């Protein structure tokens, strides 16, 4: 029973956050407005309520009101608004703010959570104050849940549930469909072409560290490429910029040759560590391209500015070039200088497609269906806005 109460209040506050009752300000009791000869008109519709901010410590109360009739227009010009706070309804209390004309809201910070406060707001014209509008009691409450962030929570949980669900499905051996990435065909054709021409294949797994997910994805694809190269008996050169990546690449390629039934064709000299320095590495790889004339250059992994140098030298040596990276800023150069480019997420999709590893498939499928949800929400939003239903926008406007 005890747990019910917070749950109930939570759901009510959720509903209120989603569909705030319209015209709250209007149905508030108006304070008594007495017009004196020289004092400006009083403010109306004063409201005081707990402020729900982004880091709620219950120490803020939000005030709003309608401007005095003499603010801007009217006979007497309002110079400032004065806000008083007290702990009893009839007290004047302490002055907590003086505000410029045209201000119709204020957040009173520094109140003690759980204490009831009363507020008075007066318009002041330099000589006289208007009658005070009063409001209260208002209490700053410490909240256990920030209702304005509900959409984030709901969508995150939905997304995570899908990722976990797909990961478990894949782990149980369910065949999850992932469409074949056209780039993979291009990779295989390139290796075939190199075989026809009797020249080696160059595979650069990027210059990322071993814990970069792009490097990990690249090593999966390298395993696939190495198997084909082993079957075709085509030399495969793998230059690396990180010594750890080199050891990993050695393992991958050696294993692939063994699986393809040609363990003797594996040549450890072809897996090379060149340099950690970006441009030195780029220069050394260009040197390999010029000297050893690979007929197929595959650049798959994390690339930065060196992408340009690779693609240009490879183009000059007339190699077939297939590239792929999730570093979006390098993609334009790859697209214009290579025969085929795997764009961003396609690199991950290709590695999930090839390896069928549950953790890769789970993430990919989860993201996929989250994109479907995203598309649905956008379409729904477009349609609802067209039909003139504004609630939708409010739901997403969580700030």
């Amino acid at each position, binding site marked *: 029973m005890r747990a019910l109460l917070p749950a109930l209040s939570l759901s009510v506050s959720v509903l209120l956050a989603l569909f705030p009752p319209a015209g709250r300000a209007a149905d508030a009791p108006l304070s008594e407005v007495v017009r004196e000869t020289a004092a400006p008109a009083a403010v109306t519709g004063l409201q005081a309520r707990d402020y729900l901010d982004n880091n709620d410590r219950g120490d803020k109360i939000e005030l709003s009101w309608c401007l005095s009739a003499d603010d801007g227009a009217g006979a007497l010009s309002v110079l400032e608004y004065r806000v008083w706070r007290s702990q009893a309804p009839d007290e004047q209390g302490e002055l907590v703010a003086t505000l410029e004309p045209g201000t119709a809201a204020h957040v009173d910070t520094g109140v003690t959570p759980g204490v009831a406060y009363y507020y008075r707001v007066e318009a002041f014209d330099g000589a006289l104050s208007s009658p005070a509008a009063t409001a209260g009691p208002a209490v700053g409450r410490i909240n256990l849940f*920030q209702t304005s962030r509900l959409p984030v929570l709901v969508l995150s949980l939905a997304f995570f549930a899908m*990722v976990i669900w797909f990961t478990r499905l894949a782990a149980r051996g369910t065949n999850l469909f992932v469409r074949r990435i056209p780039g993979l065909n291009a990779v295989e054709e390139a290796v075939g072409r190199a075989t026809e021409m009797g020249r080696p294949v160059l595979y650069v797994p990027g210059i990322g560290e071993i814990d970069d997910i792009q490097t990990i994805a690249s090593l999966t694809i390298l395993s696939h490429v190495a198997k084909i190269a082993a079957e075709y008996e085509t030399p495969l050169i793998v230059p690396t910029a990180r010594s750890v990546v080199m050891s990993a690449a050695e393992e991958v390629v050696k294993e692939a040759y063994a699986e393809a039934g040609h363990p003797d064709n594996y040549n450890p000299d072809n897996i090379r560590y060149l340099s950690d320095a970006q441009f030195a590495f780029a220069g050394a790889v260009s040197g390999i391209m010029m000297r050893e004339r690979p007929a197929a250059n595959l650049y798959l992994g994390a690339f930065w500015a060196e992408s340009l140098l690779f693609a240009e030298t490879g183009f000059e040596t007339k190699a077939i070039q297939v590239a792929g990276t999730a570093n979006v800023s390098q993609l334009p150069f790859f697209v214009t*200088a290579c025969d085929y480019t795997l764009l961003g997420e396609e690199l991950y999709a290709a590695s999930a497609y090839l390896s069928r590893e549950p953790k890769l498939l789970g993430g990919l499928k989860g993201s996929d269906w989250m994109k479907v949800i995203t598309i649905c929400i956008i379409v729904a939003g477009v349609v609802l806005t067209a039909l003139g239903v504004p609630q939708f926008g409010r739901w997403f406007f969580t700030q």
Partner: protein
Amino acid sequence: MRRHVPLALCFIAGVFMAIQYFIPHPSVQAWYERLLAWLQTLLAFAFLIGTVSLVRLHAHKIGHKVAGRGYSWVLFVGLGLMVGFGFKGRAPGSPFDFMFQNVQVPIEGTMFSLLAFYIASAAFRAFRARTLEATLLLLAATIVMLGRVPVGDLLHRSIPAATDWILNVPNMASKRGIMIGVGLGMMATALKIMLGIERAWMGGTD
């Protein structure tokens, strides 16, 4: 101890940091504040691991008399000078600042400016409109390159306007799609790390 404790710590820290976003209660926020400071300290220490690795790598090169080890000495001289100077004072005009402004700034700045040359040569020799995709890309690139320099305004008044349109319509629509996709990927990776599905960070196999 070797596997379960770190995975558990990873899970607890991750879940706490994720859900505190929704719980404004001061008791939760106080721990959040504390943990945030710890993470910051950890990051500073983790950064310095990189320096230790760098020193080990080059000490190894010198120790094993690898070809080109002379450059490793150059590296150590640079490192040693900076640490020595830095210890004495870091104000503008100090030897420490002198080295930064006159060695680090020019070399690092010049490295990437080499790319201006490479882009030009690639423009001539490698950027080809061989497919519809590449053609579209190069056309848009040409308009944007003209539209962002004063000479574009002079050539034709519509060029800057076309550039603005490209940036604000097709560019924004596609970048927004990519932003969503990459964001989901980031979240999925974070989840997998927290749940211990992705544990590349643990390294090794024991």
